[in-house]
């Protein structure tokens, strides 16, 4: 089994009309055994920037701590929050630093940039950025997620419709992946509010 499939994960981020959604599953496992069903993969960097990290859970935690540290230092020096594009470049640089001994994570970054324009991107474990205009996926359920998102996605969805779409895509995909699931965690971020919801799917 690949080391990326050791803990199991599923992440998806989607762009809507002046908003974005980022969703993850909640399972923390050790290969075939489930340890917890409330593991948090999506973290807030600042009010308009969220990062989801899939892959090996220990590196998810280490990398998240490093990124929060870097962002807090940036905030102290620049006296403002980082733009999502800038943050993506920082993550990419941090990952490439460990090119020959990488963090075994795949991040999914979603944020509202200048003029509240939604920004999403993903990258591989050594920092190769993949910008997209519609949706990005990561994790053990990635292939299923690509299919589900491709068929369910429409451009310029409002936040309610976006929430429905991303939730259905996530639940449908993790049901076909034994290493991810046990519900879902969805954040829908608009310029004025953040909607955070927990999904109950097939609890297996």
């Amino acid at each position, binding site marked *: 089994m690949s080391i990326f499939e050791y*803990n199991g994960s599923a992440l998806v981020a989607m762009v809507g009309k002046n908003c974005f959604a980022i969703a993850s599953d909640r399972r*923390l496992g*050790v290969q075939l*055994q489930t*340890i*917890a069903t409330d*593991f948090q993969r999506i973290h807030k960097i600042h009010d308009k920037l969220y990062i989801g990290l899939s892959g*090996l*859970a*220990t590196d998810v*935690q*280490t990398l998240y701590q490093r990124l929060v540290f870097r962002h807090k230092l940036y905030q102290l020096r620049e006296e403002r929050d980082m733009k999502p594009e800038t943050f993506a470049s920082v993550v990419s640089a941090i990952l490439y630093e460990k090119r020959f*001994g990488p963090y075994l994570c795949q991040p999914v970054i979603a944020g509202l940039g200048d003029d509240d324009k939604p920004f999403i991107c993903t990258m591989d474990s050594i920092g190769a950025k993949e910008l997209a205009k519609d949706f990005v996926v990561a994790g053990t359920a990635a292939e299923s997620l690509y299919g589900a998102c491709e068929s369910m996605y429409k451009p310029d969805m409002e936040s309610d419709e976006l929430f429905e779409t991303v939730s259905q895509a996530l639940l449908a995909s993790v049901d076909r992946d034994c290493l991810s699931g046990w519900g879902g965690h969805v954040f829908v971020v608009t310029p004025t509010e953040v909607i955070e919801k927990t999904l109950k799917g097939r609890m297996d």
Partner: protein
Amino acid sequence: MECVFGLVGDGFAVVVADTSAVHSILVHKSNEDKIMILDSHKLLGASGESGDRVQFTEYIQKNVHLYQFRNGIPLTTAAAANFTRGELATALRKNPYFVNILLAGYDKETGPSLYYIDYIATLHKIDKGAFGYGSYFCLALMDRHYHRGMSVEEAIDLVDKCIMEIRSRLVVAPPNFVIKIVDKDGAREFAWRESIKDVGAPTA
């Protein structure tokens, strides 16, 4: 086949570990205490490579004491758990410790808590958890019988069910177990469950 498991009850947390020290096919001793009392209100149950287990847990214990000496107040359970994870994570890509840890503690403000720390430094706060081959039996039993806010009697009854299951179903089942508890009155040994008593060394 080392087994460590634990659960959180109403105002207390309990950690149970087997007490056999094994080297290949030889049982060195059957009364090895694998649950370290970190400080007045913390327990560290560890399983894994014996040298690493003893060295690492003593290192954590001494550092927890050092913090208290330097700062005049003890670490919270969450802080101790994050410190432990940090040490494991730093050592992971240099000289990893092969120790799995269940850290239980009681804080006045937040009550009892239990943390699962993998040997690759995956940290998660849990209500019930287990390591080793015994986990295949214990986790299932705990999923069935555990509920929030169990009393000490109910919890020890569940612990005994788990021990009986391990003894009857695990092929190289450890014969003896130690149960330790932590609550507002502190961390202490609760009981032993012995089916083989170690005979003391004869005096000259």
